[in-house]
């Protein structure tokens, strides 16, 4: 669910180069298992157990990330269509079809080398039911050992002890034994603790980075730009020293940007004057990512907070991986991911973002593929408008299916939305002036 900077080629800071190297190095390791002898675990982004996987010395392969990479390289459309020709419905999540299409085209990794088959499928389906069937489809293909971690949904907006116990028990009795068996290594709780300690360190810096958007102007774009910042955290690097170093460097860069009074870096260079501060709900579109982003920065719109950047963990509300209670903490991590929170909690979070980040509006990018995000978003928008008074707007795109990105429609929508914000602002300042 997060991307690799290389496909964008914006102005490169050291953090960007580091990020690119990290992501590439993971693909290189994955496609070199014949030599490095590493075992591969396929798992999903939200609620991934990277620290645990790494503590067994295994590599982590994430199909959503592959789909994103393929979308940004304009490969996903063909893959989706070949999955549809194989009998997959046009109605279902396009990540699944991009993944299945990728397999049918030889499973070539973004570095051009064939991806190895996974040694273990680890299904932790946090916040979305599609994962469950996606995983069954992968199992049909790979016929390798599989293990499932069910993460109950926060129906009442809270994590109960029963939920936590259930997850911990599955970790102890199902997931860890499966990892032991496939990796050939015994579970080492100290190695896990060490990973989690590093996770928490990196998480501190990540939160600082995300919250830097409270500055005016915001030194970051907390949606398009933040996708890159989250790459290491959401994928195979949480828990590693590389991630700790990366977030330190990133933080320093942003501190510098704040000192200089600079806005975010965009693919078109440094952003001009910040005119609109937007909160975003929903995942981005990947096939036209750069074009989509440009529609924002051309208008002086910067995203100051987003929910998508919380699908792989909600760190800005206090959660940190806790080395002192490793398994309970992994459970809380999985249970707390954004789409595993109920709708009222999601609305509360958006409301808080609009207020804390002093946003001018809420924009929803509604994704055709993703019921987990999309079902209920119209109501969320109404609630936010009611609670905060800022205007909401809605655009519809897809994740990795290029057929559902209509640039003209999206652009029109955005332009009229920004105009509306502008008019409201004028109206408000006229009212203030006349009150004087």
């Amino acid at each position, binding site marked *: 669910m997060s991307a690799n900077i290389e496909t964008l080629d914006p102005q490169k800071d050291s953090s960007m180069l580091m990020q690119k190297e990290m992501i590439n190095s993971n693909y290189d390791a994955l496609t070199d298992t014949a030599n490095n002898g590493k075992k591969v675990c396929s798992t999903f982004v939200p609620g991934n157990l990277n620290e645990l996987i790494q503590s067994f010395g295994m590599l982590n392969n994430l199909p959503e990330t592959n789909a994103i990479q393929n979308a940004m390289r304009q490969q996903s459309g063909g893959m989706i269509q070949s999955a549809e020709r*194989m*009998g*997959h*419905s046009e*109605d*279902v*999540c396009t990540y*699944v079809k991009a993944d299945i299409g990728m397999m049918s085209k030889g499973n070539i990794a973004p570095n051009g080398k064939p991806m190895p088959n996974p040694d273990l499928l680890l299904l932790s389906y946090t916040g*979305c*039911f*599609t994962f*469950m*069937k*996606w995983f*069954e*489809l992968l*199992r*049909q293909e790979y*016929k390798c050992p*599989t293990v*499932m971690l*069910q993460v*109950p*949904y926060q*129906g*009442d907006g809270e994590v*109960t002890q*029963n*939920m936590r*116990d*259930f997850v911990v*028990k*599955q970790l102890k*009795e*199902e997931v860890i034994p499966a990892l032991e068996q496939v990796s050939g290594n015994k579970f080492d709780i100290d190695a896990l603790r060490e990973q989690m300690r590093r996770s928490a360190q990196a998480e501190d810096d990540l939160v600082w980075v995300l919250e830097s958007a409270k500055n005016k102007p915001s030194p970051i774009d907390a949606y398009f730009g933040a996708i890159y910042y989250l790459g290491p955290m959401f994928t195979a690097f949480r828990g590693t020293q590389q991630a700790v170093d990366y977030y330190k460097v990133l933080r320093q860069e942003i501190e510098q940007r704040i000192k200089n009074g600079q806005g975010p870096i965009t693919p078109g260079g440094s952003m001009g004057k910040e005119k609109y501060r937007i909160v975003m709900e929903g995942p981005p579109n990947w096939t036209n990512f750069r074009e989509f982003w440009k529609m924002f920065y051309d208008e002086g719109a910067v995203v100051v907070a987003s929910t998508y950047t919380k699908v792989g963990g909600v760190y800005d509300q206090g959660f940190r991986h806790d080395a002192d209670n490793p398994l309970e903490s992994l459970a809380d991590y999985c249970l707390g991911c954004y789409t595993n929170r*109920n*709708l*009222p*909690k*999601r*609305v509360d979070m958006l409301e808080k973002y609009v207020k804390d980040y002093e946003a001018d509006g809420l924009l929803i990018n*509604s994704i*055709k593929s993703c*019921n*987990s995000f*999309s*079902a*209920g*978003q*119209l*109501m969320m928008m109404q*609630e936010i408008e009611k609670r905060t008074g800022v205007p909401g707007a809605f655009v*519809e795109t897809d994740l990795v299916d290029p057929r559902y990105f209509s640039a003209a429609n999206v652009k029109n929508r955005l332009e009229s939305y920004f105009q509306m914000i502008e008019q409201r602002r004028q109206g408000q300042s006229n009212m203030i002036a006349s009150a004087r």
Partner: protein
Amino acid sequence: MSTVDIIKRCEELYEDTYFTAAREWKAADPSRKVIGYMPVYVPREIMHAGNMMSLGILGGGDNLEVIHGDAYYQSYICRIPRSTIELGKTGRLDFVDGMLFPSICDVIRNLSGMWKLMFPETYVRYFDVPQNYQDDIGGNYYVAELQELREGLEKLSGNKITDEAIRNSIQIYNINRNLIRELYDLRSEMPHNVSSNDVYLLNRAGMVIPVEEHNEMLRDYMDAAMRLDNPKRDNCRIIINGSFCEQPPLNLIRSIELAGCYIVDDDYMLVNRWLLNEVPSEGNPLQNLADAFIHESADSAAKYCDRHEDVGMYLLGTVKERQAEGVIFAAPSFCDPALLERPMLTDRMKEHDIPHISFKYAENSGQMQPIREQAGTFADSIKLWS
């Protein structure tokens, strides 16, 4: 009573989007409560034991005009949540004290939160079930979830839900499940006497009337149906799969039959067929319900299948047991669980040379002609090649 009279009553219940029967049941005694639930499964015994009627909400069908509901959903989301919102927003559910949203998919899951925001006075519970089938893992989790549900309902109703009462309710629902099994067996045996239209409507009636009344209705219907002597048609025997949540219009079911297919099994309503065997009524009732759920429950796309070898085997078993000649995969448009699972099921059918076709519908689909033609061609091809 004749089958015609019974089915006429069922039809009235089916068409009544104000749920008058349930309203009347509730009005007769102030301690009674009504708890709505959506597909696919909830343990109705627990409600029953607390003097609560569980009311199955399966969307608004094709007669309900959806005005408010559409404002809540994008075009690419299925119909059932919008017509359910319509039922709520138009006051048709104003007598319902609580709503259960089972864990079946992200749409129903999110609807549970929307319901909380829309109707803050109503007891709303997302009803989670285990996808892990180990007794001491998924089983324990589920027992605790059942206990939470029990406590929530006790608080809501002020009625104590004792073990004894649940055991008694288990017995009553065992009878209901047994009768439904008999009904399905009877249809499979004599589909010329027991039409799918009738079976469907009888099932739907069971969603909106007290279980005791439903039990009587099922008995009366079967007694009368067995005595019928309708002509046997040269229809082929097919199974419907994928329709476990949003329901097709009744006309669609009728069209399939008219096109030359006897439906000999289906997954239209699974709540009364979810638990496959008698649930023991001795001992700890929550444990018994959990054991039945974990070890002896129906297969559906809402469940995780933990071994690839088992994927589609339940359906295959039903094909064999019912001596079906083909499968019609009929799923609601945009239904992720059904449509994601479909390719795996069709693969299994191909492996065993079971003829099958697929189509999608919506609860308000109007045009039956294409479906009738597709089903007709399917029936002809089965007859030709068998």
